[in-house]
């Protein structure tokens, strides 16, 4: 009963509510905070304003104190006066940075709103700097600006910019795309190895380990927000394996089965490999799902993970979706999962935050998933919330993390139940 064969239609044909107005979301620069952990010899240099530096500081929390491999070249009044100056200034800052950090092999020049608006040509700058500092250092440019990217789209822009730098290969291979915590990535590498498939990953942990790409490459996305990267890979001739994303026991199983089938693995072998971890995941999820069963959930847009996560919570934890908001709806990537969410949910793309708050207050879902700017204010109004950014930083993909994922949603509900007496006695 739990397999992912679409129920008729689901929300696949539900008209999408599109609104524009104030968006309570992060910009793409935030992606740097997890990308730099993944790529161990990369440095991310944002060319932006004090606001950009302040955003990274706020998003990175205590990580900022651990010699992180990112920073902001803060533009000052003099840089805005003439463009020639700005390029010289940038070259000087980059030379200084690379002299101080000889371990850096890849440098990302990350565009921001201010640098885009003054039309500072960072792609030319990246070429120039590659000439100066290559071949030891490869300099790549992408934009993480708020005027172009929302939150996780920063990773998409980064990986898409990496694709043209990859060497070509004709060899058949499976490439998993999307940065995952090392522990999760290693689990997937192991599972595929047991099926006789070697897994290439993008991004790789170091520049030396960068995967090759070509017409016999099959691409398996680990994250739903990688539309641009997928297109860039497809331009090299690579082929997309369409699969639901690996959240939950069934989601992970379907993702693995689909990829294995595309690689010509014997289905019986696949079942042998996934039997034990899938059973483990199902049992663990079932325990946590007790708290979630028959509870309603409302998603504010944040990361584009919302639709796959809603699918997991609905199909494997027994929740009801009231509204599933996403910053961008890429039907080619998540359309299949939309079909698994029973009709009745509002599917919204983009945001006018005040109007969406009105809907959330009217719905009073048992659990509201939202950003940190909204979570405490909604808690004070008596709604239980789950802050969304944790879903991007925590290991949540795959069999072994399926119950942890459910627990992230169950914990706020259990907590509210535990402190209810006190909570209602104290007016916020």
């Amino acid at each position: 009963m739990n397999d992912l064969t679409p129920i008729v239609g689901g929300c696949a044909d539900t008209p999408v509510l599109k609104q524009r107005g104030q968006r309570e979301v992060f910009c793409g620069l935030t992606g740097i905070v997890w990308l730099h952990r993944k790529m161990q010899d990369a440095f991310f240099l944002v060319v932006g304003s004090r606001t950009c530096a302040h955003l990274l500081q706020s998003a990175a929390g205590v990580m900022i104190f651990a010699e992180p491999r990112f920073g902001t070249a803060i533009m000052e009044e003099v840089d805005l006066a003439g463009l020639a100056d700005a390029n010289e200034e940038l070259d000087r800052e980059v030379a200084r940075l690379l002299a101080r950090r000889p371990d850096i092999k890849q440098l990302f020049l990350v565009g921001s709103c201010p640098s885009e608006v003054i039309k500072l040509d960072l792609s030319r700058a990246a070429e120039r700097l590659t000439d100066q500092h290559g071949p030891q250092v490869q300099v790549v440019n992408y934009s993480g600006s708020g005027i172009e990217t929302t939150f996780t789209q920063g990773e998409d822009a980064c990986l898409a910019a990496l694709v043209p730098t990859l060497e070509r290969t004709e060899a058949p291979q499976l490439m998993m795309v999307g940065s995952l915590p090392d522990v999760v990535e290693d689990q997937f590498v192991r599972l595929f190895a047991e099926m006789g498939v070697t897994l290439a990953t993008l991004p790789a942990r170091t520049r030396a380990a960068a995967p090759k790409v070509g017409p016999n490459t099959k691409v398996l996305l680990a994250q739903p927000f990688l539309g641009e990267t997928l297109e860039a890979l497809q331009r090299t001739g690579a082929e997309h394996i369409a699969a639901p994303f690996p959240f939950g026991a069934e989601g992970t199983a379907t993702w693995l089965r689909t990829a294995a089938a595309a690689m010509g693995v014997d289905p019986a072998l696949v079942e042998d490999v996934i039997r034990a971890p899938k059973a483990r995941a199902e049992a663990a999820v079932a325990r946590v799902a007790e708290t979630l069963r028959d509870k309603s959930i409302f998603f504010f847009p944040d990361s584009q993970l919302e639709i796959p996560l809603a699918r997991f919570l609905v199909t494997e934890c027994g929740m009801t979706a009231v509204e599933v908001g996403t910053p961008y709806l890429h039907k080619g990537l998540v359309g299949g999962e939309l079909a698994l969410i029973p009709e009745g949910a509002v599917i919204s793309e983009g945001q006018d935050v005040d109007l969406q708050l009105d809907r959330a207050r009217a719905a009073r879902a048992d659990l509201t998933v939202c950003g940190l700017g909204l979570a405490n204010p909604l808690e004070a109004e008596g709604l239980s919330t789950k802050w969304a950014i944790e879903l991007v930083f925590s290991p949540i993909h795959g069999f072994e993390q399926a119950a942890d994922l459910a627990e992230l949603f169950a914990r706020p509900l259990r907590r509210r139940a535990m402190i209810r007496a006190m909570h209602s006695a104290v007016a916020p």
Partner: protein
Amino acid sequence: MKLSVWTYEGPPHVGAMRVATGMTGLHYVLHAPQGDTYADLLFTMIERRNHRPPVTYTTFQARDLGSDTAELFQQTCRDAYDRFKPQAMIVGASCTAELIQDDPGGLAETMGLPIPVIPLELPSYQRKENWGASETLFQLVRHLAKPCTPNEGLTCNILGATALGFRHRDDVAEVTKLLAGLGIGVNVAAPLGASPSDLTRLAAADFNVMLYPEIAEPACRWLEREFGQKYTRTVPMGVGATRDFVAEVAEITGMDPGTRADESGLRLPWWSASVDSTYLTGKRIFVYGDGSHAVAAARVARDEMGFEVVGLGCYNREFARDVRTAAKDYGVEPLITDDYLEVETAIAAAQPELILGTQMERHIGKRLGIPCAVISAPVHVQDFPARYSPVMGHEGANVLFDTWVHPLVMGLEEHLLHMFREDFEFHDAAGPSHLGGHGAQAEAQPTADAAGSMPGGDAAPSSDDIPWEQEAERELRKIPFFVRGKARRNTESFAEAKGLSRISLDTLYEAKAHYAR
């Protein structure tokens, strides 16, 4: 361009948000791209506010660039007015919108909203957060304060407290209590807790308390010019400064010059005089933060705690002059920089026994193995405590004593460490019981002997240092870990000055005698 990882201050529009969020009945429409809403979570998470900051962002995107953004701005203003019905609005641009030159002030003016709409010019590429807050308060006061009938009895305004201010909530309460003890009422405390209509009544007070000069100074100067209201210059942080503040208030209001506040709740002076505090004498302290808190803290450190101030600095250039003047008094080089790497270098060179600083200095202290107490923003969530913890007035002085002494090893404990330094429980790598993580140090000890270096504050010799003879190295180990780094450094510079090629047991003790206080 300047490469930066950590910034002590945000951009100026965050300063404006701090003013707007501290107030009620005020709304801020900010012309800004998607993503600038990140600043909301400073208020909802760090300060744990239970409502959203009263800020609406236009959220323009790449496809809007062109004439469209001006229309978007006006529509946003209309929607914000209709939804929130504020008493007044402030409008302005964030750094990116400053570049597209839509002129929020002009655009809002043409809309004819039935409330005061105050335009803010906040130059994002020159100025920072504190300046943004002070300019916003100044513009609000300038636009809203009107002549009015003086209150009956003596009253004052308390100016400068904002949202996201370090201990602002409790400082205002404590100073209000202090003033009440002198028979002085508070007319308006602003921005924190005030509404635009409250600001119209500022002139009804007899004088102003400039509680946070970083934020309140331009407003105070304008009120003095416009309504003849004098304002206090002393920040009442510490016992001496609080007494000076009371004297200043007495002078401004024409009270008896001998007026003293009731000090029955003040415990710092006795705590500091009691014998357990003797070991605090001459402890070397490095002070860094915003100008006002740093200068005030240095005074408390030297004159009320008996510490020696070995470094003093601030990150806000606007207060460089005050810090330079104070630094001269303490005989130290003033450090005026917003580059945390420079601060780290200065601290490493000074080798203090305690750092008084911001969140960043806490981490520098952790890295260098030096205890630290927080005296100034920027701060993280733990420095917006649930308990009452002002840093101003009498209770503020009590709080300062506890907060600063806590990270140091208490007198009796320090005595025990000396007495039983070979004892298995009190050996010098065990560390004081209240500083976490000494288990890890104990584990590291066996290898440390072999490697000739110790974790946790013992400056390891680098390759180009003068070599230590084994006997001298062993003796150095007997010195408590929290002063061992200094002893090593002193001995090495002594040996270098004498042109010695090796450090012997005698060198160690000659250096000790040389540096004896």
